[in-house]
């Protein structure tokens, strides 16, 4: 894939790679393999991931500490004969902590910060609300990118279409936090205590009264408290920040990779991601097709040869040969199907950035040696130019 050729040999620093795709396609593994390849090529690289499998986390030396960058030790790599010209770091993102940090950055007083962090409404939004994790991943990416500590940052995004919603419009999340109509509606109550709050809802606003009947007064009170502590200035801070994050992601140095496996569901998700990236004018770096069954026979000529070879065989016992042939044909059929589906994806997207295939391996990928095997396929091997 031409656009990933910078992974072969160290080039100018400042690149961002953002991996998107459906759940279960091996996005985290691919991200880690890209990171390893980049470090080998000489980049000082950070892999930023959200929820790695435990063994992969162990491999990368992440000891369950959220939001701290940790270096994958050179000795560990050396033991496997890997001597990176660069350095490899990994970090497990803690979205809630990132959100708390963001609030802290824009709070004017410790008291307000405390009020917000202990508010039930805020706690719900910052930990459980769909979209928060995606947005916080971008926030962290921006924060680290800005420091210019790394030559290359690889972000493993959460497996969710919302990852892109919030890329395009971070302000959507901000609206949920403090949209103006709600703020205006609640404002008269900011100064009142609990009893006063109750009286006012009862007397002055039929809407609030109706809502308090539905949801209970505590809920409204939580929201009012939150909005009082998180003032306009804080939201303005959030908004500016969101605009900067967005700008960075549209920079030519930020490349989006779409990871998939050759199954109908994952590929249709990949096509979805591709079209969304195009619509929103992000830089599409290419598809990475993971767990593709290798194809040994591509032409009918070799099929004839195969039959002749089977017939002429004297090396293998007939029963074993039989089984080997059946198994080979099964896997070959899967490989053909993989191939057709990948061609289908190209036909649907006309993707000119290309496709990189990573073959199916027999076992789980979690050791550094496994990652090295995967990373080879990112820069060489069956490269496919776009059509």
């Amino acid at each position: 894939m031409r656009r990933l050729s910078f992974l072969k040999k160290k080039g100018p620093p400042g690149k961002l790679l953002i991996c998107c795709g459906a759940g279960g396609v091996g996005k985290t593994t691919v991200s880690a393999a890209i990171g390893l390849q980049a470090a080998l090529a000489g980049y000082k690289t950070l892999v930023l991931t959200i929820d790695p499998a435990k063994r992969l986390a162990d491999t990368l030396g992440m000891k369950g500490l959220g939001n701290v960058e940790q270096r994958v030790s050179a000795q560990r790599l050396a033991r496997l004969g890997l001597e990176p010209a660069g350095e490899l770091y990994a970090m497990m993102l803690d979205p809630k902590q990132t959100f708390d940090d963001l609030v802290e950055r824009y709070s004017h007083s410790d008291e307000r910060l405390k009020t917000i962090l202990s508010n039930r409404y805020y706690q719900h939004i910052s930990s459980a609300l769909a979209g928060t994790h995606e947005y916080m991943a971008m926030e962290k990416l921006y924060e680290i990118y800005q420091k210019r500590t790394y030559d290359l940052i690889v972000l493993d995004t959460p497996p969710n279409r919302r990852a892109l919603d919030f890329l395009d419009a971070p302000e959507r999340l901000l609206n949920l936090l403090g949209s103006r109509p709600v703020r205006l509606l609640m404002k008269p109550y900011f100064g009142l205590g609990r009893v006063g709050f109750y009286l006012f809802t009862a007397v002055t606003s039929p809407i609030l009264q109706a809502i308090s009947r539905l949801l209970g007064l505590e809920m409204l009170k939580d929201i009012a408290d939150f909005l009082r502590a998180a003032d306009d200035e804080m939201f303005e801070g959030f908004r500016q920040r969101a605009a900067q994050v967005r700008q960075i992601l549209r920079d030519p140095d930020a490349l989006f990779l779409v990871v998939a496996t050759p199954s109908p569901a994952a590929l249709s998700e990949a096509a979805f991601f591709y079209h969304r990236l195009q619509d929103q004018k992000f830089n599409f770096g290419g598809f990475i097709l993971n767990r593709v069954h290798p194809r040994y026979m591509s032409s009918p000529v070799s099929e004839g040869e195969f039959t002749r070879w089977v017939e002429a065989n004297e090396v293998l016992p007939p029963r074993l040969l039989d089984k080997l042939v059946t198994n080979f044909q099964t896997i070959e059929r899967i490989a053909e199907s993989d191939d057709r589906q990948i061609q289908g994806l190209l036909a649907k997207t006309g993707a000119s950035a290309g496709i990189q295939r990573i073959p199916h391996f027999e076992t789980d990928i979690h050791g550094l040696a496994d990652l090295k095997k995967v990373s080879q396929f990112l820069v060489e091997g069956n490269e496919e130019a776009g059509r």
Partner: protein
Amino acid sequence: MFNKRLIFVTGKGGVGKTTISSAMAVAASKLGKKVLLVDVGGDDALAAGFGKDTIGHTPKEIYSLISAVRVDPRMAVNEYVHTFIKNQFIANRITRNRLLDYLATGTPGLREIMTLGKIWLWEQERDAASDAYHYDLIIVDAPAAGHGLSFLQVPQVLMDMIGIGPIKSQTEAVLGLLQHRKKTSLYLVTLPEELPVIETIQIYKAAAEVLAMPVGWVFINACHPKAFTTRESLEIKRRLRALRRDASNTGFLPTVLLSARIAIGRRVQQDHYVKRLKESIKAQFVEIPFRRSDVVAVCYLEEMAEELLRSVPT
């Protein structure tokens, strides 16, 4: 497998929840049951398997004896507001305003409880003439685990938070149904791979401890047959080693041996994870054979349904 009234199907993303839910529905319909298939994931994934473009927001027949519906949590919340706020002017102002979105977002579980409330209503529905249940079986293609679990946890969380009022009574009713062991069960879908297995074991534990919902069946999806005996595997490995020493060989031998290695390795891994599942989870298991198809289609669901009916007690 089909002797419940309400089945929630969940599992990690990408393990085949939607396909298994659909195939179960087809199997139940072959037993003569009237089925309602409910999509609460929001991405309209059920439609393709039945050759439809989309599933609507009211139950509609998509296959003989099977109706399907997609619950839009926002619409469910709106309906709810209109049911309980008698003053339509105020109800309209609430639902049209951004306010409702904001509040529904900020109230943990409100959308989920409204969704579950709708499922509860369908469960109660009876035919006017015969007074029999309108649906014999409701299958819910629940959100991916993590989300799926918190989805089912909601009634309990809400019970703790809300003192009185209409939501409380709705929540009580839903909770009663979820914990009704005769009527309701949780089925899990997984793959014989590391992450899905770990997550499935987590869901199982949480289901027992937190939800007090029993897990009925575990579907292990995409299982490969055992292609070689242990002795044959050893022989294949030996021959592969020999090939490495002597590369002068010979036609397609390396090819067939390498593809055998793929099958053997995969099967070893599969056995390992199936064993781990069975050691950690007390439930019934069914292995669904791997099948690579280019598209999900009705005939595929029918084949799967037939296999299910052959291999599990109905």
